[in-house]
């Protein structure tokens, strides 16, 4: 379990290097060599909060990297279901500076065009270009491969105030009762 989680974190840190698309043998070699892997094991045992997704009332999530500097943003499964089949995703441009709540793009489904607001303030570092070719990835894996963008977080404390998984689940249940 811990290796799986650590591997995922390593995967993300590897992804930010030029070796993002290396083969399995290369990956294994990197894993053995990479210092980050060892530090990761240590920080994991220190606190498990960092890998949790946090949610907004607008149904976006943010997941911080292990060093708390970068966040990955996406929409929740609840939102993806409500939207229906996604046909197009407007992604933010890299280097866009945003404040919490600003629009960073939109998702157009057969039902409507829905704005995506950023859960945290910061600067966009990457957009998930897979969505340009395969917008349906959001429907298949909204909280995994269907991530929208990565952001250099300017104020990590903003994340603290968002809902955790359990809180968000309760929130959506209440919303459904309306």
């Amino acid at each position, binding site marked *: 379990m811990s290796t799986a989680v650590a591997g995922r974190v390593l995967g993300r840190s590897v992804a930010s290097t030029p070796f993002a698309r290396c083969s399995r043998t290369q990956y294994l070699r990197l894993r053995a060599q990479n210092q980050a892997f060892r530090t990761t094991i240590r920080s994991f045992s220190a606190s498990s909060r960092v890998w949790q997704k946090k949610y907004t009332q607008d149904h976006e999530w943010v997941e911080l990297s292990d060093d708390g500097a970068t966040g990955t943003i996406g929409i929740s499964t609840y939102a993806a279901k409500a939207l229906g089949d996604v046909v*197009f995703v407007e992604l933010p441009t890299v280097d866009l500076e945003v404040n919490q709540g600003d629009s960073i793009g939109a998702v*157009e489904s057969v039902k*409507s065009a829905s704005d995506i607001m950023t859960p945290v303030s910061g600067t966009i570092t990457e957009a998930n270009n897979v969505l340009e070719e395969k917008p349906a990835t959001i429907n298949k894996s909204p909280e995994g491969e269907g991530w929208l963008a990565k952001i250099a977080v300017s104020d990590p404390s903003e994340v603290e105030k968002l809902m955790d998984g359990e809180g968000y689940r309760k929130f959506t249940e209440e*919303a459904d009762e309306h």
Partner: protein
Amino acid sequence: MSMHSAYLPQSAYLPRPITGQSRYSVVNLVILHFAKPMRTTWPPALTRLTCISHSSHTTLPHSAPILAGHCQAARRLTTSSIRSWSLEDLPRVSQETNPLIFHLTSDNPYYNLSIEHYLLTHSHPDTRILLFYTNRPCVVIGRNQNPWLETDLKRLQQGLPPEDGRVPQTADKNYGPIHKTQLRKNGRAVPIDLVRRRSGGGTVFHDSGNLNYSVIIPNSKSFKRSTHADMVVRALSSASSRYQFADIRVNDRNDIVMRRETESQWLKVSGSAYKLTRGRALHHGTLLYSSPYLDKISELLRSPGRDFIEAKGVESVRSPVGNLVWTPDPRKRAEVKTGITQSIVREFWRMYGGDQERRAGVNEVTLGSEECAEDTSPEIASGVKELMSNAWRFEQTPRFDFASGTVDGKAVGFQANRGVLEHLSLKSVSGGSVERAKSDFKEEIKLHDVKSWKGLITGGNTNTNTQEQAGQIVPEASALARNSASSGGGGDVPDALVKRIEAVFPRSNV
């Protein structure tokens, strides 16, 4: 009080209704002078406000159907006609007053969409809003669409024959006697705007015979796309004897379709688009109640590039269209519009108004183009500017590929993203090819602004004004050197091929 000499809209110069007018205008002028001033552009405001208190069916000039429509709409409301609040106060007012109805009087599509967006983003989360507007002739594409694929831009630039007295001829034969189209010999072409809206969906055509309705409501779980299309159908059904259809319903695409008495074909009279943001939902739709240009819609929305373009983004779905009720008389058309508007308002109020009374100036309000002035509302003004910009209209286009097919032994292909050329190739049947990437060009090539396709493809830099930058014209020698060796792989491009490209990508004249 300073008179602000801004931006008077075109409609301010329309001849105003005359009988019984001046008496009311004096009264309103007096009251306005002492009332809390809301805006500094007076003349258009007066035009609108006096219009509300106009109470007789006078002979209205043909050119003021919009004003006439709103005059009659407001006539049935209670007495006070002066708006008691300004759009700046919308957050507060919408919290206290719910629901709200707005009638927009401008026919400028950029204004109307910007006001609509402002209402969507600044109204209280629980408020329900209904608004109506009618635009001058324009083609409106969805947020993520491709203008080169959805419409014939060259055809758009030609404009339309003047509306008055014009009778559209379509396959829809049963709406009354058809007269030969008569163009005024001295009439100038009516320009057609190209507009990209903020909501999703496909491409539609707007003109004075098309009523746009918008509903803004909380984006809750109960939000269904069909709810307000059903509301409009109920409103229209209640007056079906007046209109010329036997059946009307919402189809599975949330379009409103109707069928005439003697026909079996269902014709689309209304399409819808949706926008969700921050807990608010916008549903806006068209309604072809009596379009004088109905027969032009098909050709305006058929692009010469449709066989050559492969695009990401959203494609339109073509449907046969029909008018709810065609009448050649603009006055009667105005009456039809008023009747429809009132029916929809009543249905909306029945759903959300509860026991409240509709009160003009309080919860049923008229907004004119003065709302878009820079000093009245800088936010709306900047929204207008954005919608009008080429960056929004053309450079918000998702990635697409163009392949010309072979013409006289040569073929051109390119890929563009955000309206900018990323890759351009010229291939010859004999085997040569010239490939150029974005970095090979001196500057970004914006598709809507290519002055000379021939020059661009053959490698000369003719995208710039020759007078200004004569010294900078340098043939792309490095690119030509990079091509695969063969005769004719470089420069020459047949005129027929250039013509094909120019038909799809004309230079935007705005």
